[in-house]
């Protein structure tokens, strides 16, 4: 069994969001970078659980520069076997997906896991694009993944509920909460990660189809209007007459 887990470097969930260069670049000053939580807590950990229960080689892939190495080492410390960094700017989702698909094409992965989206660009596109480029089935936003031989039973989230579906491997799956429980690397894992292979792969020629022109922050809230707990009628009145939402 060979599993590929796609990981991405994102700012920490509590990072201050600000922009520089005339609002064209994310301000990285003082920001701590992490493995995108959906990639780590759900995609990677589920792959590791499968490795522990049925045996599997867990490969990691990311598209980015040398600044991604710390998060790759962390993913190796959690238990990934081998890592590959495609040495290119993660320009847009199509470009990233094209690089991952070109990398994975001849490597016979049985499962390709991604997170359901990254917490920075919220594109939720890599899994579906990679699946299409490799002509593989795709199950999005999965909360559960069970294997029986070469068949997977997957719960995917839909509006107001879940769909339980079945698919033969190979498959691409985007993962969310429910797939696995978050783990922290132990000292042995951290030591072992230092000597695990991290290969730098040169990118293939691929197009970008979108570009970010600028960023903006949402307008500041006017501030909360506090109402006395003894006067809830006033709140109902404001919601009805001022906010016009009830």
């Amino acid at each position, binding site marked *: 069994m060979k599993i590929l887990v796609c990981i991405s470097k994102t700012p920490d969930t*509590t990072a201050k969001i600000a922009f520089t260069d005339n609002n064209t670049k994310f301000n990285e000053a003082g920001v701590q970078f992490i493995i995108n939580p959906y990639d780590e807590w759900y995609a990677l950990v589920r792959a590791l659980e499968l490795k522990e229960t049925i045996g599997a080689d867990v490969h990691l892939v990311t598209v980015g520069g040398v600044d991604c190495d710390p998060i790759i080492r962390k993913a190796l410390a959690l238990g990934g076997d081998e890592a590959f960094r495609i040495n290119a700017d993660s320009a847009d989702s199509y470009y990233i997906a094209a690089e991952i698909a070109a990398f994975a094409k001849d490597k016979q992965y049985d499962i390709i896991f991604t997170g359901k989206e990254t917490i920075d660009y919220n594109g939720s596109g890599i899994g*579906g*694009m990679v699946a299409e480029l490799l002509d593989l089935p795709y199950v*999005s936003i999965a909360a559960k993944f069970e294997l029986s031989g070469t068949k997977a039973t997957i719960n995917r989230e839909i509006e107001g509920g879940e769909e339980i579906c079945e698919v033969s491997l190979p498959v691409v799956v985007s993962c969310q909460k429910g797939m696995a429980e978050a783990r922290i690397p132990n000292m042995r894992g951290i030591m072992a990660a230092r000597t695990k292979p991290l290969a730098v792969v040169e990118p293939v020629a691929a197009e970008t189809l979108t570009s970010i022109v600028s*960023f903006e922050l949402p307008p500041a809230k006017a501030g909360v209007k506090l109402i006395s707990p003894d006067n809830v009628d006033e*709140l109902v009145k404001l919601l009805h007459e001022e906010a016009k939402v009830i």
Partner: protein
Amino acid sequence: MSILIFADQAQGKIKKAALEAVQYGAKVAQQLGTTATALVLGPADNAELTALGNYGAAKVLHVADARLHEVESGVFTKIIAEAAGKEGAQVIVFPHNFDGKAIAPRVAARLKAGLVAGAVSYPDTSNGFVVKKNVFSGKAFANVNITSEKKIISLIPNTFPAVAGSGTATVEAFTPAVQDADFKVKVLKVETVSGDIPLTEAEIIVSGGRGLKGPENWGILEDLAKALGAATASSRPVADSGWRPHHEHVGQTGLTVRPNLYIAIGISGAIQHLAGVNGSKVIVVINKDPEAPFFKAADYGIVGDAFEVVPKLTAAVKQLKGN
């Protein structure tokens, strides 16, 4: 040239987010001097299809194949790509809901069309084709230029509420070549919570946190939700403790919602929770801790004990609604 809108359905009824996408697509069509075609896959009532004219669709392509009752992303991608070719679609619009997230990226890769996922604006065509989208989990926006010839936009639900007008759409049956072997993912079972409003489509949401102290106290929250015609939700600790089902969990790792009104009861407002609700138009916070960070993100707030405030609020809402 035309604009194609993927209008998804559940049990034969066009979803609310899909109506919004159709209306959005029709406006984009107007902007670009062309017409909008809605594409509906799976069995649906004819009345549902013609009603799409009220949201601006000039034409509705319908594939009445019963196998399309549930989404198979590969099959849907093939059909949408075929329809896009047939209609000469320059722009394809999806609702940014579970269906849209499953399909739009595949279609984008197949057609080599730039994708803006999670759009919150109409395209600005004064210098390119720039669409504003949510980034950093609602904490910022990015203006994204789609540089490819074909373009795909998936629209965040409840960004532009759908308003029915009076148009007519011609309904055309469409029979793409789909083989049984194309259905690689087979749906064994669908488990939906019947009778409830899906959270992502709810206009009002009443949400509870640890401040409610236990699942046995959810009655006061449900009473308020019922009086308002609202859906109920919860914070992460509540879902993790098993007080409420996971599909009600709103926040960074749960659902992202964008209702007109979000009422948070006994939720402190951690940044991860705010990431799931900061697109709400109006936020009301009820918390006994005046220092709760949620008040900073709120429009209206009551500092007080939920067990006293919420029943009074329910009574006041009932009085307003005259029952």
